[in-house]
């Protein structure tokens, strides 16, 4: 124990300049990430803003129970998981494929143009994106107009008002906005690959696909795994503002997720206890999933975050 302590102090002394640099960040994390955790007690009491915690009635797991017993709970869970899983499959693979394609481009100027253009949608606010999507996908939108003109359909497809299209639309729109941005990480990981490895592969007769499979993918695997574990941790975060913008009354049965429910009841109705209980439940499940995935990745892929 003493030895361990000594080692820690020695290591700290050695890295003191780095620790000094970290001080503002540590303070920030403590103040804005750890101190507010005290507020989680709200989930277990009937909280009234301004009232001392000691005067608030302790209700135990009432708000957790209320949420789970809510008649729309299963629908909320279904929507949240469905959209999250689509993001974790289709939405997760898209930036990797895109990064591989961009990496294959030889013309540097063209590569820069493609990369820049691809992440521009990320900076478009959801409100503006919503208007663009309405213009594209409404019954009188550009997409329906084109489909009607080329005779593929006889009547407009109600993309925005029929729930069955919502999950697909959500996934595609998210991909449009985020693929380029998410690919930056993979492209930068690929840029670190030793070109001699690729050249050696070519000498050995590897095709471009072979290079991707045996050189590039194994090199960026740790990045993929980290992204995957983080993604799994956020499985109960299936978007928020995009639903308020893209969703409407007709499609609510398909877009209403845990976060939008929590916003309506927790914030808009002022039930902070309920909102906090829902948030806490999500976080606990998220942490458990991160641990489990991390364990799985360590066992099977020999790569993990911690």
């Amino acid at each position, binding site marked *: 124990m003493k030895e361990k302590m000594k080692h820690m102090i020695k290591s700290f002394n050695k890295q003191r300049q780095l620790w000094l640099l970290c001080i503002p960040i540590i303070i920030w994390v403590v*103040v*804005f990430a750890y*101190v*507010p*955790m*005290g*507020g989680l*007690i*709200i989930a277990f009491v009937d*909280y*009234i*803003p*301004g*009232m*001392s*915690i*000691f*005067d608030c009635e302790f209700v135990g797991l009432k708000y957790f129970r209320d949420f789970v017993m809510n*008649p*729309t709970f299963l629908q909320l869970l279904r929507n949240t998981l469905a959209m999250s899983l689509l993001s974790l499959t289709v939405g997760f693979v898209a930036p990797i494929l895109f990064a591989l394609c961009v990496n294959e481009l030889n013309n540097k100027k063209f590569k820069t143009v493609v990369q820049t253009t691809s992440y521009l949608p990320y900076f478009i606010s959801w409100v503006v994106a919503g208007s663009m999507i*309405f213009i594209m996908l*409404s*019954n*009188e939108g550009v997409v329906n107009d084109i489909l009607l003109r080329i005779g593929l359909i006889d009547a*407009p497809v*109600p993309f*925005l*008002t029929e729930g069955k299209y919502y999950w697909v639309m959500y996934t595609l729109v998210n991909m449009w906005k985020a693929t380029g941005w998410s690919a930056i990480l993979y492209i930068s990981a690929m840029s670190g690959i030793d070109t001699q490895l690729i050249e050696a592969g070519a000498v050995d007769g590897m095709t471009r696909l072979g290079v991707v499979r045996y050189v590039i993918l194994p090199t960026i695997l740790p990045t993929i795994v980290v992204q995957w574990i983080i993604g799994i941790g956020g499985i109960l975060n299936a978007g928020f503002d995009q639903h*308020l913008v893209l969703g*409407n*009354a*007709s499609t*609510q*049965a398909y877009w*209403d997720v845990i976060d939008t429910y929590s916003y*309506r*009841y927790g*914030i*808009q*109705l*002022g*039930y*902070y206890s309920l909102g906090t209980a829902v948030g806490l439940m999500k976080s606990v499940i998220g942490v458990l999933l991160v641990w489990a995935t991390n364990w799985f990745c360590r066992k099977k892929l020999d790569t993990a975050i911690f």
Partner: protein
Amino acid sequence: MVAATLAASMLAGCGGGGQNAAEPKESSFEGSGEVNRFGWEKPKETLEISVLDASGYYAPLEAQEVGEENNLNYLLEEFNVKMNVEHVSGDGTEALNLALASGDYPDVITYVPFSMVEKFVRMGKAVELTPYMDTVGSDVKERMGDHYSLFLDDEEKLYYVPTLMGAIVELPDRCAHIRYDEWQAIGSPKIETPEDYYNALNAILEKFPTTPNGESRYALSFYSDSGHYTDPAMLSGFWGLKSGYKIDDEGNFTHWAFTDEGKEMTKYFNRFHLDGTLDPDSFANNYEQWQTKFSSERVVGCVGEWWITYNSGHEIWQSVDPDTPEDKRFIQIGFKDEDAENVYLSGKNYLGSYCTIITDKAKDPEAIMRFINFQATDMGTALTGWGLPNGTEIGDTGEEIKFWNIDEDGNWEVDPTAREQILNEQWSYDNAYYEEGMPWLFVDQSRWEDGEHNFWPNQMWYDENKWKSIMIENLKDTIYDSSALTLRVKTDEQKIAEQAVADAWKANWGAAVQANSDEEFEQAWKNLQSALTSAGVETLEKALSDNYKANMEKMEAQ
């Protein structure tokens, strides 16, 4: 930041957690003996009032900011009242919860939702106003009139005044609309029933199937986004339901989705869908998108607030082309299902929707109540609603705008030019921002005792305005007093049920309206009922019934 504030305040218990009303404080108000032309006795020492306007989403135009500054300066000069006003740029209720949690709020808060008033009262942070109502608050009490008892809590105490109360009894809020010139072009058929309206819209559509730009048109279109909904509760009024409920003789409420009338109403709109004449984006349009469609003349008819066809129709057309024919505009109409006893489109809730409270931070609540009471007088109402009298500069244009004049002796008149402009619909609401901006602590929008004037500059002299006269005449039997129907005190269970019921109809009603066959319609209707039942519609019905019966008893006992 929100979490940090809540956590800090919660652990510190900065609110104290009292359960009683704020303790009464002695008033130090001393009049100077000088009564100004508005009938207000100036205080000897400047009366300072800090106000939080919690209406939310405050994003003023430059002219509005100048207008507020003009008004606050005027108050200081003419009334010796120094008012400091803060506005909320985000959600008002969220801001109030944070204010309550942090203990950071001023003397007076306006636009407080009733649920938040309850919290302030429960925390002992709202001053009880009952003791003032027969003294310095007597004009407010008089304005509340027969509804006074409905403002009191179970212990007959008053903790707030409505920020905006009352109603213009003859002015409808909601109605059906039809294009006047097109209605004339099809021979001005009588519209007395839903069937007549359906036929008229389709006849217009047949005669004018496309816009002047060649785009297709729809007989009807809806809109739906936060705060703006084509609300079936209102639509069911054409079929004789009140505020979306069937109320039996004993005061029991049944939600529209469980009545024959509600089903018939939904089938009526489904018929437009089956014909292909209902805008297919009716349940996707937000209000702005709907306005764009409407101002492009793509919609033949609609149902909603009376003003939507003003600011989406002829006001736009006339601003783009001043030569727009006068008849190219919508008129507001009503109709009644043949089986309905009456039609109920505009429920007048005299109690208002938002409240003004004096908080425990106020050093002299009685003095503040004096000023609130001034706003309840006719001159206070005029100053608050009509703007500053005797002319105000329009920015730096060198020109002036004025709605009314008042001399040193208190003799007043509405400016004849302004009156003419209002009647001809040429009044510049943009310029009027420079003279408006008085904080609303208490406003009664009902017509004054003279039967002519009221708070809103553009809601007078209807009989001299052709279009308003048509609206008033067409909709005279559609207005009803909904004050006793309004559920203000709600338990947590009732609040959650209310939200869940709203979620349920919003998610399911559209499917019934857009059903493609009778079978599909019946299934959608069953789904709607089932969703409402799961959401707790019975809890809501019972709460509304009990509340209504209790309110009727209170009013009868008064």
